[in-house]
């Protein structure tokens, strides 16, 4: 099946859990939050939550920012008003 992860298409085995997806992206144990189709899935449910074809998954974390820092991909900006063209400094490490 195919899902959309942070705006990009991704092939995934049928009936994969959210935890499986997180593991496959080397994000195990990282401090993050997950939304599936605009609904937050609490950490306690990642192991039992089964993804479906065409699910839209957003995985977010905390980055450096003060006010109106436009760097990084803003998961909330669907409108395209701001293009996330400037990568945040964490990308360069």
């Amino acid at each position, binding site marked *: 099946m195919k899902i959309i*992860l*942070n*705006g*990009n298409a991704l092939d995934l085995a049928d009936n994969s859990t959210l935890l499986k997806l997180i593991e496959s*992206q*080397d*994000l195990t144990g*990282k*401090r*993050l*939050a*997950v*939304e599936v189709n*605009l609904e*937050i899935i*609490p*950490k306690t449910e990642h192991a039992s939550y089964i993804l479906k074809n065409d699910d839209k998954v*957003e*995985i*977010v*974390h*905390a*980055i*450096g*920012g*003060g*006010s*109106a*820092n*436009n*760097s*990084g*991909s*803003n*998961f*909330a*900006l669907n*409108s395209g*008003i*701001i293009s996330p063209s400037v990568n*945040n*400094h*964490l*990308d360069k*490490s």
Partner: protein
Amino acid sequence: MSDNLLTIAGKTYNSRLLVGSGKYVDLAETKACTEASGAEIITVAIRRTNIGQNPGEPNLLDVVPPDKYTILPNTAGCYTAEDAIRTCRMARELLDGHKLVKLEVLGDEKTLFPDITATLKAAEVLVKDGFDVMVYTSDDPLIAKRLEEIGCAAVMPLAAPIGSGLGIRNPYNILTIVENANVPILVDAGVGTASDAAIAMELGCDGILMNTAIAAAKNPLLMASAMKHAVIAGREAFLAGRMPRKRFASASSPIDGTFF
């Protein structure tokens, strides 16, 4: 000196300087400047995790750990109430039920002025949802009061546009906001150098949130320290109460007893 403690949403802080964690060269600089500023509340942005890149990359929260600092997730970059509310809810999940957030809903890319109608709407929803909302707003005293009435934990008027470093452009409005308030008032945005921070504190502000003034200084580490001292100096001057201004001189040495 309870006068020197800042209380926000029931929690007290020794430092009245709040700092952002953006615009630094690397995480080492973020860590060093945050420590030098003495700040206890650090604002962070919420963004997509980089997929498939640098799996071992260090995380901001490793250098600004939530067990040492109060993390203040912000809604920077949000232009609608819906996006800001969504960001706050993601932050709450990210930080294990953490309720303190910095709400900003921007209206315009050039000025980064807040969209006030959307800010009021988002604040109402977030307060009802149990968040402790520190809200970025314009320097309009009526709107500041309205945000307090909605139940925001702190109101944070801009002193000048975000990242402009233009200083306290309208001290009389900031003063009016401070005088009217029953919640902490913090200047958020516009401070450029230490004297700006001192002026804001002398007006009676409860604190200042800044990022660019430190991160974009030629020596960010030294400016972080300067800001720490400026906020303390400004607060003490406010508490001390300044002398009245006079148009003409008033000698400090006695006139009696002169021998010439």
